[in-house]
């Protein structure tokens, strides 16, 4: 959450409580003139004005509305060919790329390399395991690798290391913020945070303005399901058109860098990137599974969470936080979706799959196992723990 600009105004130019006269505007003009004659005062007034303007004008809307919901279009499994080689009855691999900093990005890159180096023969055709990778559920820093894989295909193996893994993103972010008065101004807005600037950095270095629409246009698997956590409930948010239909938003227009940054935000470190809820504007009718009683407690909870987005009046904005806060592995989406649909067959029917001979769940986990017997921190505990 941001902070109020008015509450945070750094100076009060006139502390005299009396007079109704001169009128406020004249008084402000007088104060301005007086202040301009004093360099320090002038800078304080200018600074205050800039901060006020920042609050008013830096309010980006990152996700676009969807004019008409169409179940046959948008970024989702059923709008892509069944596998990279076009075969519908071949092994079906669902991977998850965990969060865990750049080490997670490196681990998932290494996993993709092994899949690309593992040949298989299916129905007489030489293939690679990576060609059968249908879905990647990605969380936080795993999302950078997953999106690069979907966007660049095999080129990821040449470029990802130099363009992402071997860069110091923390220094880059600091250098983008601290020496830049324009970014100070933008960051003063309660609607703009460091994650927006991080998204800009990612866009310049990795995603080059590409959107989910570009992934759709490539027409190749794997499909990437990014997972974030909703600030309101810590339930998970999936970035695919099936889920964006609920909020009547067009995922195709969302930039990959904004989506990736959204899944990586953490309170205090990277503030959330707000998404607007346009529910009710695209003709989306909630399916029966949202409204009917589900057989499991998990299914009922998921249905309740999804129903909450249908009321845009009372839930006008969504604030995605780091996906790791709800599930750092990236497989809870698989479990919850299956619980919501009721069984495995119905879930894969929804995904448009058929004749699957081998279903593989591959979890790439870069998490740490900190030695909690060596916890010596004496400061007030926060989200960042130093040991």
């Amino acid at each position, binding site marked *: 959450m941001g902070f109020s600009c008015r509450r945070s105004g750094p100076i009060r130019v006139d502390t005299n409580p009396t007079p109704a006269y001169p009128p406020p505007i004249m008084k402000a003009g007088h104060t301005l003139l007086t202040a301009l004659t004093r360099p320090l005062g002038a800078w304080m007034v200018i600074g205050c004005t800039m901060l006020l303007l920042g609050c008013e004008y830096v309010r980006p809307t990152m996700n676009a509305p969807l004019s008409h919901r169409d179940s046959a279009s948008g970024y989702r499994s059923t709008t892509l060919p069944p596998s990279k080689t076009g075969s519908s009855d071949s092994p079906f691999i669902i991977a998850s790329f*965990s969060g865990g900093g750049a080490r997670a990005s490196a681990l998932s890159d*290494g996993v993709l390399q092994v899949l690309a180096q593992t040949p*298989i*023969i299916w129905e007489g055709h030489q293939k690679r395991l990576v060609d059968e990778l249908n879905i990647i559920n990605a969380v936080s820093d795993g999302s950078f690798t997953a999106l690069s894989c979907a966007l660049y295909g095999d080129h990821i193996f040449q470029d990802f290391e130099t363009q992402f893994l071997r860069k*110091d993103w923390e220094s880059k972010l600091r250098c983008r913020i601290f020496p830049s008065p324009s970014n100070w101004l933008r960051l003063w807005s309660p609607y703009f945070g460091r994650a927006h600037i991080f998204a800009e950095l990612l866009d310049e270095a990795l995603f080059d303005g590409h959107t989910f629409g570009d992934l759709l246009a490539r027409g190749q698997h794997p499909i990437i399901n990014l997972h974030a956590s909703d600030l309101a409930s810590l339930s998970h948010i999936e970035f695919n058109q099936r889920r964006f239909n609920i909020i009547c938003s067009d995922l195709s227009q969302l930039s990959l860098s904004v989506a990736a940054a959204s899944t990586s935000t953490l309170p205090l470190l990277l503030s959330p990137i707000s998404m607007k809820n346009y529910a009710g504007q695209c003709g989306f009718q909630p399916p029966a599974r949202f409204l009917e009683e589900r057989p499991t407690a998990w299914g009922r909870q998921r249905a309740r969470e999804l129903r909450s987005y249908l009321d845009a009046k009372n839930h006008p904005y969504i604030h995605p936080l780091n996906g790791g806060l709800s599930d750092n592995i990236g497989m809870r989406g698989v479990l919850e979706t299956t619980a919501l649909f009721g069984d495995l067959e119905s879930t*894969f029917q929804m995904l448009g799959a058929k004749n699957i001979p*081998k279903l593989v769940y591959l979890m790439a*986990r870069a998490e740490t196992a*900190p030695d909690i017997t060596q916890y010596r921190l004496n400061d007030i505990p926060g989200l960042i723990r130093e040991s």
Partner: protein
Amino acid sequence: MIDIPINHYSTDTLQLMNHAVQQWRLQLRQRPDHLPNMFTPDADIYRINAGLTEMTDPEEEARLMNIATNLALTNEEVDHLLQADSRLLRDNLEFQRPVRDLAHDATTTSTTSDTH
């Protein structure tokens, strides 16, 4: 080292995933033949846990655990992670099983088609 403790429930997710895969395997075996289904009659489900905490060499695991979860790796750390990742998956028995089964299916299919 800076660590952000957000993976507390990962063990739960792993357990739930293990349990679910066992259940789904059972569902596949018990499904009625006459209903349309998304899986072949002999379909199988595999679960591969490729986690850095699964390294078999304790020293190697300790070195990997000391790499911070930040966004600024050294070149040495990147090299180390990429080498470890490759071994982690190749040496993983859960990964070897579907690869072996796919190779077996390819041999069987090839033999069958040769005899026809």
